[in-house]
């Protein structure tokens, strides 16, 4: 690993000031938990290595899970372990807890942050699908001020985001209208622990109980396109349609057409297409089961929801 300078940011404003100061003249990287960055830097050729690393791990203003007028705000520095232990998230979005649980292992979840996971933006990013399915928005801070955008647009391609070199991802917001929207996250990896997703899927929708139809359905797919995508045709198909097993299965089939999976050493595109259909259907079933239990007052824990999908 090539030598670099480390500057420690006291808070997000300080971090942004440091970026503004150093970015014009040096190659700068931001470190939070370091689980992706450090692994990348260890064997990177020195031409790719940064001159300066801005350490935001002490910027405590980014370490919060709080309810605001706009919705549920999650600071970029919140670790995967903290998401798994948050009573608010357990209550409102067990799918987020499930997603966090599938990332790495205890040690990496203790270090790794939600912001870091999203900024790394690998196509299989496990935090991505659930948040995209819940129409999450991200806030980017720079000396010029803040801007916000849908997470779906923040992802641009493999390891590419809309983040400019002097910007910092500070906040992830699940909008107020989606608080408590039933969602389910499922991941298929080659192992249970420390696996990258061959396919990961999140489904979310409201139920119109009077008519028993899908309202505002979302299916988000990971690892099957250059970035996390909405299964648009499946979503359009489900909107206003009666909730029944055949509709969920058909949505799964339609989701396959929305994806562009690749062949690689982990799996063939064909295998991934099969997974998309099955996992999308199961995620819809999982979200529906959660909706039903919420309605009857029994909130199924997040883990149970995901285990149903593992069969």
């Amino acid at each position, binding site marked *: 690993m090539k030598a670099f300078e480390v500057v420690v940011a006291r808070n997000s404003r300080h971090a942004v000031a440091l970026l503004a100061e150093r970015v014009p003249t040096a190659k700068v990287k931001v470190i939070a938990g*370091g689980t992706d960055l450090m692994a990348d830097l260890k064997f990177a050729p020195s031409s790719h290595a940064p001159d300066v*690393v801005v350490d935001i791990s002490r910027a405590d203003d980014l370490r919060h899970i709080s309810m605001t007028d706009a919705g549920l705000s999650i600071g970029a520095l919140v670790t995967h372990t903290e998401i798994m232990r948050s009573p608010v998230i357990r209550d409102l979005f067990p799918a987020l807890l499930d997603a966090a649980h599938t990332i790495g292992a205890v040690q*990496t979840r203790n270090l790794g942050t939600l912001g870091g996971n999203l900024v790394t933006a690998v196509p299989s990013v496990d935090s991505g699908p659930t948040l995209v399915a819940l129409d999450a928005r991200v806030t980017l801070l720079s000396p010029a001020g803040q801007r916000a955008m849908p997470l779906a647009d923040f992802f641009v391609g493999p390891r590419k985001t809309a983040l400019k070199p002097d910007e910092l991802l500070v906040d992830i917001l699940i909008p107020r209208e989606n608080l408590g929207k039933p969602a389910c996250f499922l991941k298929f990896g080659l192992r249970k622990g420390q696996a990258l997703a061959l396919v990961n899927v999140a489904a979310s929708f409201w139920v119109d109980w009077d008519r028993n139809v899908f309202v505002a359905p979302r299916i988000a797919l990971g690892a099957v396109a250059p970035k996390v995508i909405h299964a648009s045709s499946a979503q359009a198909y489900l909107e206003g349609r009666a909730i029944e097993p055949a509709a969920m299965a058909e949505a799964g089939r339609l989701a396959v057409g929305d994806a562009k999976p690749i062949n690689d050493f982990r799996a063939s595109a064909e295998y991934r297409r099969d997974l998309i259909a099955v996992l999308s259907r199961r995620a819809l079933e999982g979200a529906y089961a959660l909706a039903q239990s919420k309605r009857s007052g029994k909130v199924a824990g997040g883990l149970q929801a995901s285990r149903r999908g593992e069969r």
Partner: protein
Amino acid sequence: MAKVTLTVNGEARTASVSPETTLLRLLREEFGLTGSKLGCDVGDCGACTVMVDGKSVNSCLMLAVQADGRDVVTIEGLATMERLHPLQQLFEDKGSLQCGFCGPGIIISAKALLDENPDPTEEEIRDALAGNLCRCTGYSKMIEAVRAVARAGRDERTAGSVA
């Protein structure tokens, strides 16, 4: 150079290191605490696991400067030859370690688990050890040892409440 002051196994330690130094290298090369191992250097194998402020982390992924002011516990902080930590005793009794290279990391991961959850289920133990690879495939005896420590703790607590 960056000055780092932290608590290691209960003692205040200070070192001056180049900024890109990892916590693992600080421990091994500056403090001579070679119990934490470098296995993969990218956070996959868990041989470098230490506790920072009570949480298990991969010390190969953390910069030494990020550990400044924090409380670090390594395998060397658990016991001496005469007085073993119950985990070390049970790992010995159950034959949980073969080549031993993964051992310090696994024992630290198990300690981090038991500190927070003294009576874990087998599923929880497996989850807690998922970030520690062993190629001699000794996992079942490790899980057995962690269960035995938890059981002993439970018996102790029960005995205490009766008395």
